[in-house]
């Protein structure tokens, strides 16, 4: 059964230095508040996993929390580059960043295998690309019935997965809707899971396109209203496209970035 905790407690209990951590949310429902709490608690040497690193991982990488990144698309959607991600890969600042790179189809299937308790997934993908030459976690597998050669990718089983959802009930059952991406798979694939929510309610009225995570499949639920900003939470907020565009200038320069993080993230709680 999921425990209802504060965000600070949840991150302190579930995220350790050196962990493999997945913060998922496909453009929608990105758990920014949880990412900021990880920065405030100064976690280090994390292996960050995420299909679309987005601004949230640009911040974690720029603040030196990450040792390694497993991903499939590292950009600022509709804007351009993630400058902190680029600086880490191109110049090793603030620390060298090891990368393991896949396609979306491969990453999605790696989470599916993880959620299914299988060691690998099969897809028809990467064919002819240079990704297969540079990424060790892409291998051929042969169909035992037809002899066709397909692509295998290993399961992703994060130590902890963190996602943001619209709401939970007091028993810890979680409900999300709209674009729910790969969050169900990411939570079920993980050893531990934390879900931040906009609100905690008495009962969860069914909603079209909903995904429900039963309380017994989640470790902890934390109330974090607005916890997806500058991403959005359908029914609660809209995507702050202006912030995503302004991030380009904020993140381009190391000092500007560090100053912004100090003011808006580290300084956002008195205990830092």
């Amino acid at each position, binding site marked *: 059964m999921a425990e209802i905790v504060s965000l600070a407690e949840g991150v302190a209990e579930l995220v350790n230095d050196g962990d493999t951590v997945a913060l998922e949310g*496909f453009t929608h429902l990105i758990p920014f508040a949880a990412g900021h709490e990880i920065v405030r608690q100064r976690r280090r040497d994390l292996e960050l996993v995420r299909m679309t690193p987005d601004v949230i991982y640009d911040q974690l990488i720029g603040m030196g929390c990450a040792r390694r990144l497993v991903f499939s698309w590292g950009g600022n959607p*509709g804007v351009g580059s993630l400058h902190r991600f680029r600086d880490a890969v191109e110049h090793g600042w603030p620390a060298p960043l090891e990368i393991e790179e896949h396609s979306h189809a491969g990453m999605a299937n790696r989470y599916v295998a993880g959620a299914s308790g299988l060691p690998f997934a099969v897809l028809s993908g990467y064919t002819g690309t240079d990704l297969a030459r540079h990424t060790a976690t892409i291998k051929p597998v042969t169909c035992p019935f037809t002899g066709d050669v397909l692509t295998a990718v290993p399961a992703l089983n994060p130590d902890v997965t963190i996602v943001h959802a619209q709401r939970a009930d007091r028993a810890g059952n979680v409900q999300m809707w709209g674009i729910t991406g790969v969050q169900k798979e990411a939570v079920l694939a993980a050893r531990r899971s934390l879900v931040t929510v906009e609100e905690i309610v008495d009962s969860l009225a069914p909603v079209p396109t909903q995904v429900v995570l039963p309380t017994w499949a989640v470790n902890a639920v934390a109330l974090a209203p607005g916890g997806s900003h500058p991403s959005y939470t359908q029914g609660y907020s809209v995507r702050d496209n202006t912030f995503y565009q302004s991030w380009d200038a904020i993140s381009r320069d190391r000092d500007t970035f560090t100053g912004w993080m100090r003011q808006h993230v580290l300084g956002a709680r008195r205990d830092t």
Partner: protein
Amino acid sequence: MSNWTADEMMTIAAARQLRDGTSCFVGIGLPSTAANLARATHAPGLVLIYESGCLGAKPDRLPLSIGDGILADTADAVVSVPEVFNYWLQPGRIDIGFLGGAQLDRYGNINTTAIGGDYRDPKVRLPGAGGAPEIAASCREVVVIMRQSRRTFVERVDFVTSFGYGTGAGDRERLGLRGAGPQVVITDLGILQPDPSTRELVLTRLHPGATVEQARAATGWRLRVADDLRTTEQPGDSELSVLRALKAASADDGSASTA
């Protein structure tokens, strides 16, 4: 409304490639702009599929990301990301894959990963693959939209993120790729298409005002010109006004991104 920008011409020429009633897997940025223009003009029945899991999205403004709320709100169905790739893209159900890119080569291979240096230590690190490798492999055909320059149109891409025709005729067949590959590349200067026998990209159309010399100067390989080179029909007033209205109604600057 007889004056327009090269970007507008490019977007309109790309939109014209999308037939009504077909399904189109849409990358963000230029492809999304052109696909939504097509829906708003000659192809109201165009089915837009976004990798965020939105099937049949009908946005009335341009989304900035492939996961904007407007896409889910207007979709016929919203499915999970594993499902959109496994059940919808992978089996080859989707007619057109619509991609942009940072680098394109003579045989239609696309690079969105890294430019210069070595993969482990690149000069310029790009966002990466996203859904593109499987879109390029599995859609019945691929349409590419990219601004043309010697820096972006190269003899051989530094990194093959999305496979076009590899090193030429026969490579896709040898690899058993489902789709037909890049059938048309729309640029700000004209249109390139693969030579039926060699699969090399050849200039088949020039946009009004553009010249063969400009196109050659903006291409990193010895660009061949089709014998029946034709000129793209200039943007119609309605095409231009709808495009400008779409962009005005959106936060999107249409900048390159293939999320």
